[in-house]
């Protein structure tokens, strides 16, 4: 169902003819995203989102977004805004929806060095923000998918764990100020912003609307559009510029003074997790994150072929239970403390730093980039087979992550044995030890499948579905994919105090005309 | 033996049967034998008894003769009508014509009327004995590919390229000659023939040496240079030397169309073919690639004519040909 001409003209008047399109070839770009089949539980040969947007708009400012939203309410259209569109939930998925590509809103409004706050618009990429922040000795939280993703999107509306979560938490916890165009077109400036135009806090007055805005996962455009947010920044121990040597495809970082990059290994999940307890208690790393052998190997090599050759040497398998660590001290004393702790912890837990692995070209460097801002991840998780999905993710204690890791291995194994995924058991990513693991540890048993191979994709779809069931029956907890979208909620909500019923109420109350795409969130009550 | 014959629609040439018809008769005989069918021939014209008699010596079972003063000259409308009626009468299994101007005009119209499918300009015919069908081989895409068509519709109908097959030879058994009532109506003629103008009675296919010019010659003036060369060669070798040309040379009016070599002109295979200023579009190559020796002279090194030439000279023919002629004279 195409937009009525009247509605189209109304939208066109807002953004100008060059910033609106309903060209099918253009819409294809807004209907495609990786892992769509397992995420949407759609057929293996269906590469696109079930519903294509009716039009795409490129708003240039908050007022335009508000005006668009009012048009949506008037004409019974849904909108769905996204930042960089990396995740399936970020794309429009319901019929009669227009997509708002926030690309033209790409300003860093402010980096407040003294108060460690950055105010950003939707299309500021994490990598850009990182570069601008380190000029001031600070860094933003970075989610796993890395530098190309929108910082605003992951903080405000998507999901948000990353390699440095140990010190930069979960994206939902870094929000200080929010400018929110609600589905109705009304503008909500949360917290201190609404009171005095300052960006330092979004909680209150009274109850915090941050709780409605998002939870563990964001609302994926279902509650309106976030046009500007303020986020917390964190310490950066390095220099004011990222430097690297070499030419594509692998750029080796010049690892700054008082920073170091290690891949530490243990002989089992249990030993590794024991070490994680010690690492977090000692508060001694700049970043720390589980290093899945297969994709860490991919990150340090220039091609699949090179990776395969490395794999055949057996070095990676020898380090199957590995945890990548970046140390970073603001002083000599701090880095010495960190190095000493690491050594002691390895000793106590029977861990090691594999010399042979460190000698692999780019090994230390790729680990550094990955931890710095999620760089190299594309090599790691996509180059091998083209896509990935997750089995039974969870977020609670490190011990629970360990429990989940065993479960993940078990769930994936039959498929891996049949050659349907990339061969590697123990590919549980995560151990994003948020806030030194005080608010949990994320784990994602991820499996790499080939979306071009129908059998592989079918397996991915099946395991994706079964994983939600396993999360419930095995009690590993509700993690990532179990937590977003109507379909997952229908399965999980009855086992979690019917949270879905409240979400449906929220959707109805905040978006009375369903003028925002409910696909990634839930249908209204 | 099936009573549905392989029917050949013959053409006359002067007072005799045309050479292309004889070629068809050889091909048709083989098809007829393979399909277990009779071979029949039809001749249309005025005062053609002699020709029919002659035609009866080439191995056909029957020769149909349609005689009428209305077809003194070739009249497409009348031919189509007459053949339609004959086919209704003899119900041929296979119908063959030469890919001549007559065949080109009559066959498609006849095919339409007979509600069958036609393959034109075939270079080979073969019977598919298993399925009792006709396999028609035909160059397509200007000669860039060769296709084999096999249609179920009857009569299996093809026009066949000249000079591809050897002519039939005389046999001792005479064909039965059957007179067919012409049943022609002058009013069926919708096209009034005002006159026929003879232009240039050349038979490129009989030439031993062809000096051909293309767009690169630059104008009709240029062909004089070529004519001088041809004359020299004629004198010194005693061979039949003719001037030919590519389609552009003809289309631009530098040469009469009878001298066109190529897909829509003559297909030739002389002992020596000298292509001057011809880039070598496939449509031209199709007409001369079977020549025994090919010499190409072209300014443009990228011209594809060089790909099929034995000798090539990159350069301006205006400088090359006089020098060639001079040297040739010296050597003669």
């Amino acid at each position, binding site marked *: 169902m195409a937009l009525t001409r009247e509605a189209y003209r109304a939208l066109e008047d807002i953004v100008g003819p060059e910033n609106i399109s309903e060209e099918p070839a253009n819409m294809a770009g807004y209907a495609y995203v990786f892992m769509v089949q397992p995420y949407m539980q759609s057929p293996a040969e269906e590469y696109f989102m079930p519903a294509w947007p009716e039009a795409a708009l490129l708003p240039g400012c908050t007022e335009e977004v508000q005006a668009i939203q009012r048009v949506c309410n008037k004409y019974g259209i849904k909108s769905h805004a996204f930042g960089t569109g990396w995740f399936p939930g970020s794309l429009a998925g319901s019929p009669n929806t227009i997509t708002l590509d926030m690309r033209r809103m790409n300003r860093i409004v402010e980096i407040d060095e003294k108060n460690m706050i950055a105010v950003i618009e939707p299309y500021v990429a994490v990598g850009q923000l990182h570069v601008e922040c380190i000029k001031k000795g600070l860094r933003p939280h970075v989610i796993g998918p890395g530098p190309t993703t929108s910082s605003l999107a992951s903080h405000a509306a998507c999901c948000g764990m990353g390699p440095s979560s140990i010190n930069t938490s979960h994206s939902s916890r870094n929000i200080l100020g929010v400018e929110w165009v609600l589905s109705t077109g*009304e503008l909500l400036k949360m917290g201190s912003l609404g009171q*005095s135009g300052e960006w330092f806090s979004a*909680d209150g007055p009274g109850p915090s609307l941050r709780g409605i805005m998002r939870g563990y996962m964001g609302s994926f455009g279902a509650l309106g559009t976030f046009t500007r947010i303020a986020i917390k920044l964190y310490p950066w121990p390095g220099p004011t510029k990222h430097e690297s040597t070499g030419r594509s495809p692998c750029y080796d970082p010049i690892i700054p003074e008082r920073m170091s990059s290690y891949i530490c290994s243990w002989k089992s999940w249990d030993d590794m997790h024991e070490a994680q307890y010690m690492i977090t208690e000692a508060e001694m790393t700049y970043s720390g994150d589980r290093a899945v052998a297969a994709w860490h190997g991919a990150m340090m090599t220039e091609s699949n072929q090179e990776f395969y050759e490395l794999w055949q040497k057996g070095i990676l398998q020898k380090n199957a239970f590995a945890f990548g660590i970046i140390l970073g001290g603001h002083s000599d004393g701090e880095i010495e403390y960190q190095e000493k702790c690491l050594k002691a912890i390895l000793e106590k837990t029977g861990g090691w730093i594999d010399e042979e692995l460190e000698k692999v070209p780019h090994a230390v460097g790729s680990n550094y980039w990955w931890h710095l801002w999620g760089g190299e991840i594309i090599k790691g998780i996509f180059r091998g087979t083209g896509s990935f999905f997750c089995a039974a993710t969870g977020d609670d204690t490190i011990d629970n992550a360990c429990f989940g890791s065993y479960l993940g291995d078990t769930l994936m194994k039959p498929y891996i044995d049949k050659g349907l995924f990339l061969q590697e058991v123990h590919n549980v990513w995560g151990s994003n030890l948020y806030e030194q693991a005080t608010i949990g540890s994320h784990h994602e048993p991820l499996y790499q499948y080939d979306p071009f191979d129908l059998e592989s994709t079918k397996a991915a779809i099946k395991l994706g579905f079964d994983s939600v069931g396993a999360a419930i029956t095995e*009690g590993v907890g509700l993690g990532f994919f179990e937590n977003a979208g109507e379909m997952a909620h229908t399965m999980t909500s009855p086992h979690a105090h019917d949270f879905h019923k409240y979400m449906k109420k929220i959707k109805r109350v905040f978006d009375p005309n369903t003028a925002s795409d409910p696909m990634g969130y839930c249908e209204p009550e | 033996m099936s009573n549905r014959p392989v029917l050949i629609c013959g053409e006359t040439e002067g007072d005799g049967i045309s050479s292309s018809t004889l070629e068809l008769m050889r091909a048709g005989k083989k098809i007829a034998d393979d399909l277990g069918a009779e071979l029949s021939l039809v001749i249309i014209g005025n005062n053609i008894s002699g020709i029919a008699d002659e035609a009866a010596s080439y191995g056909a079972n029957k020769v149909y003769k349609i005689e009428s003063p209305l077809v003194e000259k070739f009249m497409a409308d009348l031919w189509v009508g007459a053949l339609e009626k004959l086919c209704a009468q003899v119900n041929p299994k296979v119908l063959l014509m030469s890919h001549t101007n007559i065949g080109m005009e009559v066959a498609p119209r006849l095919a339409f009327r007979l509600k069958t499918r036609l393959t034109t300009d075939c270079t080979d015919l073969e019977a598919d004995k298993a399925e009792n069908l006709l396999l028609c081989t035909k160059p397509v895409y200007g000669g860039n590919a060769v296709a084999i068509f096999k249609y179920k519709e009857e009569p299996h109908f093809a026009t066949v390229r000249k000079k591809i097959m050897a002519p039939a030879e005389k046999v001792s058994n005479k064909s039965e000659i059957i007179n067919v009532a012409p049943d022609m109506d002058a009013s069926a003629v919708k096209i009034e023939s005002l006159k026929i103008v003879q232009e240039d009675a050349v038979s490129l296919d009989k030439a031993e040496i062809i000096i051909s010019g293309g767009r690169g010659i630059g104008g009709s003036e240029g062909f004089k240079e070529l004519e001088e060369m041809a004359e020299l060669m004629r004198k010194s070798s005693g061979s039949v030397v003719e001037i030919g040309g590519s389609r552009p040379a003809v289309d631009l009016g530098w040469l009469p169309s009878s001298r066109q070599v190529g897909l829509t002109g003559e297909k030739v295979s002389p002992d020596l073919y000298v292509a001057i200023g011809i880039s070598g579009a496939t449509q031209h190559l199709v007409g001369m690639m079977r020549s025994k020796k090919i010499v190409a002279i072209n300014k443009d090194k990228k011209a594809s004519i060089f790909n099929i030439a034995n000798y090539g000279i990159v350069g301006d023919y205006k400088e090359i040909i006089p020098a060639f002629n001079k040297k040739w004279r010296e050597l003669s």
Partner: protein
Amino acid sequence: MAQKDELTKIIGKKNVLDDQKTLDAYSRDESFVIPVRPSCVVKPTKNTEVQALIKWANETGTPLVPVSSGAPHYRGDTIPATGGAVVVDLSKMNKIIRVDRRNRVAMIEPGVTFGEFIAALDKEGLAAHMPLVPRSTKSVVGSYLEREPITMPRHHWDPQDPLLCMEVIFGDGHLFMTGSAAGPGTLAQQWENKRAQIRPMGPAQTDFQRVVQGSQGTMGIVTWLSVKCRVKPELKKSFLVPAKKVEDLLGLVQKMQKVLLGDDCLILNSHNLACIMAKDSSEVATLKDALPPYVLFISAEGRGVSPEDKVAYQVNDIKIAAQANGLIPLEALPCGLSADDVAAALAKPSDEPYWKNKAKGACRDIFFLTTIDRTPKFVKAMFDQAESKGFSPNDIGVYLQPTVNGTSCHVEFNLNCDSNNKAEMAKVKGLVNDSLVFANMGAFFSRPYGSWSDMVYRRDGETATFLKKVKTIFDPNKIMNPGKLCF
């Protein structure tokens, strides 16, 4: 009385009180809110009773006012705003359900006080994240639900810290668990699977606990919280950094937050520090005179595999940072007050009398959020205000607490007063109610008690509108503490 009978059925006779004395006690507090007597006070002992109570309240349209801490109350949030309300006093729900050393988390009921909590944690080798010297009757759950700041900004990642998960019975009567506690599985099953209810986010795409926190009991009643604890340090080095002006200290504070140095980090003026450290009012006066006008208290704790090294490098770095700002961290002030003594005082609830009441018997607070760099202008404004209203600057305590890793700062002025001095109380009331002055300067009254709620919701009508919508979701019949905030 029908109401009492019904309540008795739900809660049991001994936990339903409606004697005048009790009702009077619950009708007023130390704030300036208008006293309203509840119709009844109930003291449930378990969550099922709370749930039944809320269902009953929905059926009967009875307002419920939850209370966790013991008296004295200071904010007016536990005083009914309408007549006929039932106060739900949760002090009898005072179990410490679980202390998990390994995962640094504890699960407690609302009636647990800081004193009880600290003791229980200490046994397991943990320590609580402390607000500034709470009164002994203060409920831990109450403090955390009110978003009272803690003294260690480095561990304060989010305004909701150290609150993690909760069990809440929403105003609609639905029992709910937030964060990773939500499920699947009962708590026992979760513990079995090594879960400890430490992930605050969710479930799914909503952070329900954020809506409950700061709601002053208007969304539902919390029946337990899981809370972040820290490992009890094996050693701790504390310092007092004296300064004449607040401004002088801010460079060091910001530097420490920016590079994650130290644990405790707060600024007190001489008055407040004296109140905390002195035994009684007379000692307050002498101590105060001996103290520098402002003191920054900082500490570095050692824990983990190499506690000594951790403390050592931090002390060194703090000293360098202090020096760069022209400051000297002292183990003891010239007057003899040692940093360790202060550390000890901050690690426990207040001795009696409550330090805020120590100087003059009573105290009223003005507090709000801003950023560290903006604090001096507010301090100046407070004293200017006091001067203009004729309130003695000598009676003003100043407490500056960086929060959320230093991205914001809690500014608190403690107006020490004598409740019997009507003229003085009128001035205090005037100062508290005139907080618009601060709001106009950018102060963010994120916890709008009493008269402040009108001020903030008038300033930001959109937020009020949407909070009201939220309220309809969780408390459709508006039985939870009606009349508070914008409800």
